[in-house]
């Protein structure tokens, strides 16, 4: 199986490798997959709470070249999008962009899951933040 040029490019020059502070209120962290399956992706987003725009994204992946490329591409695509726009990213688009063969489609699915998990985590944090504001408002009444 020969890899597509784009997969090789992402593998050799992965975009946005690294970590954001998972304790920060602006950061959403998605951790998907399992070591037993041979695929684990951690995708993090930093969101501007006023505009809901994803300002930064970082990833780390344990997995094959296609998994690394899928998650690297995911961080490229979410940057500059609002959280809702990012939620509409489909794995089929990743498959098309990277020319993934059928046996590697599950890598793109995991990347889509990672985006959703990161956004879900961020939203949960905003939920908590909102509750805190409400509680504060309650207390001050």
């Amino acid at each position: 199986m020969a890899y597509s040029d784009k997969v090789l490019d992402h593998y050799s020059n992965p975009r946005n490798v690294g970590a954001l502070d998972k304790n920060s209120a602006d950061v959403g962290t998605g951790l998907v997959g399992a070591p037993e399956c041979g695929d684990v992706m951690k995708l993090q987003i930093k969101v501007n709470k006023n505009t809901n725009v994803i300002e930064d994204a970082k990833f780390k992946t344990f997995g094959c070249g296609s998994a690394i490329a899928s998650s690297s591409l995911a961080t490229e695509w979410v940057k500059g999008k609002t959280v809702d726009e990012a939620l509409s990213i489909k794995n089929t688009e990743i498959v098309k962009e990277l020319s993934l063969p059928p046996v590697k489609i599950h890598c793109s699915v995991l990347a889509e899951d990672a985006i959703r998990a990161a956004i879900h985590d961020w939203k949960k944090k905003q939920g908590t933040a909102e509750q805190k504001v409400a509680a504060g408002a309650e207390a001050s009444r």
Partner: protein
Amino acid sequence: MTSDVKRKELETRQGPNGVRLPIYMDNHATTPVDTRVVDEMLPYLTDRFGNAASRNHQFGWVAEEAVEIARERIAKLIGATAKEIIFTSGATESDNLAIKGVAEMYREKGKHIITAATEHKAVLDTCKRLEKYGYRVTYLPVQKDGLINLDDLKRALDEQTILVTIMAANNEIGVLQPIAEIGKICRERGVIFHSDATQAVGKVPVDVNQQSIDILSISAHKMYGPKGVGALYVRRKNPRVQLAPILDGGGHERGMRSGTLNIPGIVGLGKACAIASEEMLKESCRLAGLRNRLKDKIMGRLDEVYLNGSMEHRLPGNLNISFAYVEGESLLMGINDVAVSSGSACTSATLEPSYVLKALGTGDDLAHSSIRFGIGRFNTEAEIDYVADRVCETVERLRELSPLYEMAKEGVDLKSVKWAAE
């Protein structure tokens, strides 16, 4: 190469220290054909094209003579007589013939077969098929070092057992089973002992009498011979073993294997065996030295690197290592100028991780992180050094990319994490 078909180019280039890239270090998958073997075969693809079964003219006699010379050479390498060697299309066919041949011939005596969990699919799938026909098969487990427990074998043998089939050397982890002891136990219990010696013949000493082996499978392309040809040793004395054929038509090879003989291939196999008879001892020393050098360089530079299978009972050219926190296929991609293979699910067509590593008790995560190195006749010390460097730098780079490495460094116990995919 004249052709109306477009073929991929074989791209080679020069690397540092006189190393030619890409480096082939996957000698358990197949081996380059030794030029001495090619030279020996060529006349049988050109002038000496006769069919060995043509008994009435010199085209046939010349071919027949070549076959008999090859038979002698193979027999010599394994301590057998020429009459006990029959030719097949390879070890898969040899394994099929051995197991199905015994099963059918001795079915009145019993229907129980014993094998091991780490056998090649040619043996395991054949046993599975026999189970469908009503045979009972015991798959002996292996210990952490990859060896079977002889007490397990003794306990598994019963009055219905007609065959024990255990490989001499494993293709993934290179582990050598205690063949002589297994042979002795089988001989005492009057049970036929077959060994798939595909990875062992020509690499470590094999003697069918010293090791009490009754049937033995051989493959040419694992020992610097051509693909598409192999042999099966079938004992004629003490005890005499009979096999029901799996191919009908013509009765060639003493009725055991019909079909026109692949003379060029057989000549090649014979020559490969002759070379091995001469060079095996010296070569195995050299390969063990190279293998140990590779192991020491890698394990000296990287931490959390685990050897799979016994180091003591192992093929001299085999190394199988798991690199924690790094997945096998991504590692192979990073060392794309080195040809090796991996036990990772991502590299298999069925997305299943290596069942051999699983049988050792290796966790799936480490199975996904394994690389198999098969060092062979044409590998050099400069190549070993190059490969060691490339592997280490790639592992280091991929660990920087790995969330598992990050978590481990933070002190997280990965075994206690609840993963989303579980």
